[in-house]
């Protein structure tokens, strides 16, 4: 469906968001170390491979059985309710980290992914990407199939003993694939 109205432009999150947007336990979709929890983390780098210490990432995902959460309370975490959404700023080494659960597939044919949004000083509009969990089900995913192999890999998280690693490269030889959805215009 073609939108009738032109969207308001985005702007950079700027350098001064860290006292405003991050909130207590924002990066803890589930308490770290709780049964079934995983770590989802990585480093954000720029075109020189230098870590980006002033980026903000948000993730949005289904729960472990593939249900899309509808519970409120992400901003006031009670430690029990899974809201599916979290927010984490990068640290001085460009590193971000969430504790969450591995998302289930929202339908039996789909490859599960965590939706990642990136904001940063110097980045004039937000970027969307998907972090797929590694596994054989990826072969049938239409988005992954539409990418050359070397670019496809930027969307697949790496399994680790404690969870998954997903590095984000804003620019450069391993530039992450960022997404444009049908409603988005230049």
């Amino acid at each position, binding site marked *: *469906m073609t*939108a*009738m*109205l*032109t*969207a*308001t*432009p*985005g*702007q*950079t*999150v700027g*350098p*001064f*968001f*860290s*006292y*405003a*947007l991050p909130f207590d336990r924002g990066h803890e979709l589930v308490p770290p170390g709780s049964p079934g929890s995983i770590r989802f983390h990585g480093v954000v780098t*720029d075109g*020189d491979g*230098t870590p*980006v210490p002033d980026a903000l990432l*948000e993730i*949005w995902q289904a729960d472990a059985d593939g249900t899309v959460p*509808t519970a*409120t309370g*992400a*901003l*006031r975490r009670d430690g029990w309710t899974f*809201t599916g*959404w979290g927010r984490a700023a990068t640290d001085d080494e460009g590193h971000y980290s969430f504790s969450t659960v591995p*998302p289930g597939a*929202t*339908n039996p044919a789909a490859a599960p*992914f965590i*939706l990642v*949004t990136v*904001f940063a*000083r*110097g*980045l*004039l*509009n937000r*970027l*969307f990407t998907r972090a797929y969990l590694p596994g054989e089900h990826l072969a049938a995913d*239409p*988005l992954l199939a539409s990418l050359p192999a070397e*670019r496809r890999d930027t969307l697949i998280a790496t399994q680790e003993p404690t969870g998954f690693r997903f590095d984000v490269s*804003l620019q450069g030889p391993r*530039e*992450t694939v*960022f*997404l*444009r*959805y*049908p*409603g*988005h*215009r230049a």
Partner: protein
Amino acid sequence: MPSVATSSDGAATSQAEVSAEIEAIEAAYQRAGVEETQPRLDYAPYRSSLLRHPTKDLHHADPEGVELWTPCFGPRDVGALEADLTIGQRGEPIGERMVVTGRVVDGDGRPVRRQLVEIWQANAAGRYIHQRDQHPAPVDPNFTGTGRCLTDDDGYYRFTTIKPGPYPWKNHRNAWRPAHIHFSLFGTEFTQRMITQMYFPGDPLFALDPIYQAITDRKARDRLVATYDHDVTTHEWATGYRWDVVLTGASRTPMEDS
């Protein structure tokens, strides 16, 4: 092609040089004749963007699964007092008390109901409560400059705050940002997520600012400028501004939304 700096160290560059780059890009945009509605990610006059913009085209994705849905927020997340940035401290903040209100709609004009809106801003002197802000203007002990609210059943948000001041930054020599309020918005689908900045009408710094001018289209830039509205202004209390937000089109239809 105009020559542009390749370093993000802008201290030696003058405003005149940056303004010339801005004007050259806008002139080329107008010659090209293809309408743009969003900021360019690759916009050299904003030096910090040089190494932080993707060089490859954004890849088309048909939204699926969680992309068709959005996080839910409720009264448990946002207290009613968080929409008033002038209270909650020991005293009154200094500056022009103002109300900013508007409506959040999707690309089809449907109101975005009961959804989170977050703002943050400098104080009246142009200073943020942030340790990295070294601008030698006074911190206001009665103003943190952060607020949150949920839109109402018609998609309206409303904040009471202090009009922010312009402030200097280090993009180039004598660089100043126009006064602005940062807005963070969610839609009915996560692909509508956006963060932007709201500006004030008639700001003399508009033409000089590479962040604002990264939106090469004049009509599109104007969408970030609030309107002074005397019907929002209240008697002997606060000035009033109106600023509406249109998010990108949603993929789900209202029927599916039930």
